[in-house]
């Protein structure tokens, strides 16, 4: 059970709908009864409402425009920003320009993004959130026969729960949410490195080899096997992580 300090460190993520379903429920329950945390949440929500209803506008900071421009250049070399953003006096451009810039920038960055890219980002975000929120496991156990049955009734599939080999200890499992559906997250540890393995069903897909990618300093591996999609993420080095994936397969 989380303490008030723990709840308050997550209260902004809760307010913004950025937490996993299980943490959301825990915070919901806590806020219903806690005389310390409930007013803090009310203040955050009141501030958010005031800002959103206040018809406020703000010019984009020049350095932010520069960063978006760099990102766009990297994604689409040679493509120019709208003329309004190349004018001197950029700092006077108002809220409308800000909206256009951000929307245009994000749309451009997303252009050419594959569904796989989106899952990769979601997997890394879930991994980071599980570490930040100190919420690696809902069922902390090293026993395969405790972790596997825990998922029964919580998911519409039964994830294969296996040993991670001699160097990787199972430390538990939890529910997570990826690609718009609940998924199983199995958690292993190699020395001080936590490893998240996300599993969900992909019944129509044939088996694939292990694929790999790095993002934000994290290594990812994924493959499909027997109608299940497997995604592994960790700060562990790529070679050891490959060892884990091979052993798990």
């Amino acid at each position, binding site marked *: 059970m989380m303490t008030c300090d723990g709840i308050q460190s997550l209260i*902004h993520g809760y307010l913004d709908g950025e937490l996993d379903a299980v943490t959301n429920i825990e915070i919901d329950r806590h806020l219903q009864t806690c005389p310390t945390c409930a007013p803090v949440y*009310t203040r955050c929500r*009141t501030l958010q409402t005031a*800002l959103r209803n206040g018809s406020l506008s*703000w010019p984009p*900071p020049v*350095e*932010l425009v520069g960063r978006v421009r760099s990102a766009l250049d990297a994604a689409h070399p040679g493509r120019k920003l709208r003329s309004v953003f190349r004018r001197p006096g950029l700092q006077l451009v108002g809220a409308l320009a*800000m909206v256009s810039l951000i929307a245009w920038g994000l749309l451009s960055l997303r252009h050419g993004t594959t569904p796989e890219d989106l899952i990769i980002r979601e997997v890394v975000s879930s991994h*980071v959130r599980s570490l930040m929120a100190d919420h690696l496991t809902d069922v902390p156990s090293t026993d395969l026969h405790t972790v596997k049955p825990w998922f029964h009734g919580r998911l519409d599939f039964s994830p294969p729960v296996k040993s991670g080999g001699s160097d990787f200890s199972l430390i538990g499992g939890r529910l997570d949410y990826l690609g718009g559906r609940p998924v199983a997250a199995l958690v292993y540890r190699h020395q001080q490195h936590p490893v998240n393995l996300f599993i969900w069903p992909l019944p129509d897909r044939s088996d694939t080899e292990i694929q790999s990618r790095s993002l934000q300093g994290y290594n990812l591996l994924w493959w499909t096997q027997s109608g299940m999609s497997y995604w592994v993420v960790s700060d562990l080095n790529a070679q050891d992580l490959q060892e884990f994936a091979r052993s798990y397969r």
Partner: protein
Amino acid sequence: MGWAVAHATHAIQNADRRLLIRALEELSTEYREAIVLRELEGLSYKEIAEVTSAPLGTVMSRLARARERLARCVAELVNEERS
């Protein structure tokens, strides 16, 4: 602590647009950027991280600190105007 939180909530409820803008002006560029992107532009944490080239964890903590500071600032400005 409890009284300060309740006071800030009350102050925010009574703050008009001009006062909110003044409070936003008091924030550092970094904090203001986080608030603007989240509350005015409606970006998700992941999108803010992309646009600002900051790690997701930094976005979360920056936004939390920015809101704390903004709430305090609104309360102080309301006090100032009343005195």
